[in-house]
């Protein structure tokens, strides 16, 4: 009986995550579990980041050479297309030449998915809508009043709120909704990688460590039985 209580107490930890799934001001986030093992997805995410995010947001805890190694980026692409600044070495941090403290208040994004959660970022990026009362011309369902403009408007197109507070498409962007959703997955995967590059190695090697200790337990159990 006691063993059951013990086990129940212990297992209940993991089914349950701290904080409700409330998404900022939104009731519930669109659910998304990032994966860092699809290298193509990470590369596409990096591409989107470079094109749409890097003019305001730094990734100042990530080094270029780490990014190159983990995503398998060819040297020429790294130096010409991504860094494109001969004063920056590959061992430098990914700051895109931006100052450490952003003059417009755009936070560094290296750890953002760990602070907010994958779901939150994924939902945030998709719930911008047209709002002429805001200085940027748009507002966001997850983070109302955000100072960030609808940067991805070119890909997503415009949305607006109907009378029930639901989002409806106004005009089309370069990508249709499924493609945009897929692009956002790639982008959040990339951000999840940036917030913990070691995750690739960690998730890959864990099973071997655990299996070793299964063997360890088995051998030690047999030894213990000798002396019971």
């Amino acid at each position, binding site marked *: 009986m006691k063993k059951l209580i013990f086990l129940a107490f212990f297992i209940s930890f993991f089914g349950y995550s701290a904080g409700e799934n409330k998404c900022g001001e939104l009731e519930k986030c669109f659910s998304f579990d990032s994966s860092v093992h699809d290298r193509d997805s990470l590369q596409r995410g990096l591409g989107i980041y470079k094109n749409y995010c890097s003019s305001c947001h730094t990734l100042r805890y990530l*080094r270029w*050479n*780490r990014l190159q190694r983990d995503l398998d980026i060819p040297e020429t692409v790294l130096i010409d297309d991504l860094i494109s600044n001969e004063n920056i*070495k590959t*061992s*430098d941090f990914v700051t895109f030449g931006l100052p450490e403290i952003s003059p417009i208040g755009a936070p560094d994004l290296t750890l953002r998915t760990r602070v907010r959660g994958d779901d939150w970022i994924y939902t945030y990026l998709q719930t911008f809508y047209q709002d002429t009362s805001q200085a940027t011309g748009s507002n966001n369902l997850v983070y109302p009043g955000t100072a960030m403009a609808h940067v991805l408007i070119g890909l997503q197109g415009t949305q607006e709120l109907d009378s029930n507070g639901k989002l409806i498409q106004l005009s089309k962007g370069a990508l249709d909704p499924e493609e945009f959703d897929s692009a956002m997955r790639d982008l959040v995967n990339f951000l999840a990688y940036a917030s913990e590059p070691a995750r690739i190695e960690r998730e890959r090697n864990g099973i071997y460590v655990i299996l*070793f200790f299964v*063997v*360890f337990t088995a*051998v*030690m159990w*047999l*030894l213990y039985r*000798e*002396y019971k």
Partner: protein
Amino acid sequence: MQGKKAKHIHISEGMSLYTRDRSPFYWGYINIDGEVFKKSLKTEDKDEAIKLLTLWKDEILGEGKKVLSQKINMPVKKTLISNTKPFPKEKINATRRKALQITSSVVGAVTVAGFAVPFLSAWQPSERAKALGASVKYDLSKLEPGAMAVVEWRRTPIFIVHQTSEAIKNLPSLNQKVANPALEEGVSRTTNDKFSVVKGVCTHLSCAPKYHPEIEPKAWDEEWKGGFFCPCHGSKFDLAGRVYKNVPAPTNLEVPPHSFEGDTLIIGEA
């Protein structure tokens, strides 16, 4: 008695069986001169229980020696036991035991080694150290002949000398004056005759030698053909960094790992 369903079965004087609602087994109750003993006989069979009960009574009367008084809460001074032989309920299989001892020792050793790996690896230079210690590039096209540039690599000043043709001509004539002519290294001691690359650290006590390329008599040498002079203790080196004889410094100025890529000099491993 305890429990609602306890059954008390009298066997003989001071000896009974009873059951308890906590346990499926028979329990033994023995009373010897007012001292009461109770324990589980670990059997559901009544006849076996009676047999065990009798054996137990003999055990208490014969072997068991009560060392202390009956109160459970009396403080107990521990005495060491003199016998440490194992209590085999079954025969000990010596080979199996030995095999398991060896196997578990091996597994234990592998575990320790496995734990050691991350901790020992963590002492390797980190990415930051590698970034700071990375190779340094220098554009040679900006360096005039006869001029010297100083570049920092791994916290050491590196002297890059653009040798004039006169200097290259003069260097072999100094082969007798230097302690170690290092002929196998070539005239400039690099793969490129026009440039010498040496660490600006005097091999005596690590002062920074001064660059004196002028070919004229100097206070430290009447026939000075250009080179380095260390002001601390007067060591002399030629323009390729080779140390003169009879000076405090014992060896030539060290040549760091380097390579040439067109007009670019790379100091450090590529």
